[in-house]
């Protein structure tokens, strides 16, 4: 590994990579639950495509996490053989989908953060992090444009769609703070130049969110309360059910491949 990685605790770096990969893995899994159930065919396909991109990015992040960790674990090992308390995704992505409006609002709030984060990562001191970010950013740009577009159309839509989008925003809001609140892992990886200053990512996120919500005629909630825990492995009860679904095959038939 390059110089930057030597300046930071290996465990902190691997944990940070797992956060990136677990966010995309769990959100990708949630989105794929819509497959065959979306309100219109085009959105069904869009959601499945977004899920596919996110799961593809997961392979890159978790693959690198396994290498950095140096214990011989692959991306598949990390995805299929860890228990809930070892997952490092934010709470937002593991919450149930709710209705289509709730899913879309969560997607927009996440996409806006994801886009800002990946943009900052283009200047990471770690070459392989830069490479993954450059690849993922191209895909996430399309995610953000779609979700922002739909949030505006539904927010500034009918009385019914407006009310649902505002309710979705109010419901998700307390789960957005975790994305941009740094802890010791974020601080250590930022000091090594691997990850950006999360506060800066949060500022860019906030600008995008405010611009789009204004166009969507939705009101940004006043509350600054933020649920925390996912990044350090304290999850909601929902994650266990996702893992039961996702990991069943590998647990029941260890080493199964096709």
């Amino acid at each position, binding site marked *: 590994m390059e110089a930057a990685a030597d300046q930071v605790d290996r465990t902190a770096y691997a944990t940070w990579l797992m956060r990136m990969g677990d966010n995309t893995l769990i959100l990708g899994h949630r989105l794929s639950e819509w497959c065959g159930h979306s309100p219109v065919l085009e959105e069904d396909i869009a959601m499945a495509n977004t899920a596919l991109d996110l799961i593809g990015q997961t392979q890159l992040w978790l693959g690198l996490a396994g290498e950095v960790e140096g214990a011989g674990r692959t991306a598949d090992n990390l995805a299929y053989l860890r228990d809930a308390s070892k997952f490092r995704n934010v709470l937002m992505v593991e919450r149930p989908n709710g209705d289509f409006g709730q899913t879309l609002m969560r997607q927009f709030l996440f996409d806006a953060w994801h886009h800002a984060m990946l943009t900052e990562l283009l200047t990471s001191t770690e070459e392989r992090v830069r*490479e993954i970010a450059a690849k993922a950013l191209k895909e996430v740009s*399309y995610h*953000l444009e779609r979700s*922002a577009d739909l949030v*505006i159309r539904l927010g500034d839509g009918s009385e019914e769609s407006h009310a649902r989008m505002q309710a979705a925003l109010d419901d998700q809001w307390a789960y957005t703070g975790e994305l941009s609140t740094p802890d010791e892992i974020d601080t250590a990886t930022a000091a090594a130049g691997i990850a950006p200053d999360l506060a800066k990512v949060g500022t860019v996120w906030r600008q995008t969110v405010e*611009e789009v919500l204004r166009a969507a005629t939705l009101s940004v909630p006043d509350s600054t309360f933020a649920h925390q825990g996912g990044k350090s492995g304290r999850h909601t009860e929902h994650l266990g059910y996702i893992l039961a679904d996702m990991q069943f095959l590998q647990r029941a038939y260890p080493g199964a491949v096709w």
Partner: protein
Amino acid sequence: MHPSVDTIWSWLGEVPDPEIPVISLTDLGIIRDVAWDKDTLVVTVTPTYSGCPATSVINFEIEKVLLDKGVEQIRLERRLSPPWTTDWISTVGREKLKAYGIAPPIDGTAADGRAAGLASRLTGQGNLVIECPRCGSIDTQKVSQFGSTPCKAAYRCRSCLEPFDYFKCI
């Protein structure tokens, strides 16, 4: 003696993309390098999209054609950087796409997450003029940013009323 690198390129130029079989892997621009490492042939491939489900099939097809031609020691390497761009689709590839009914990408129009101006977002319109690959009309409309595969967007033509795929820029 080994077959020459040029010969290998020409073989790979006959391998169809598994999802869009009218174009080859070399038309698509995903073969980044072909080189001999002593007796092992190293083929470097870049993925189109991170989660493209065709990736493993593509690797299999590459191995298959090389084995069929008598190359037995093969190593496939993945290269992420620079990331694949639709700019690398060859001119011939673009013509084949169009003849097949897929509008080829318009270079330089990849999403950057901020490109869709507020006005275009508010009206739900994309800002691209895409020509219908069937009738040539430019009276077309984006139906969805995401089409039948990750690399395509769904459009419809308001002249001939047919739906079609647009190979979107990335």
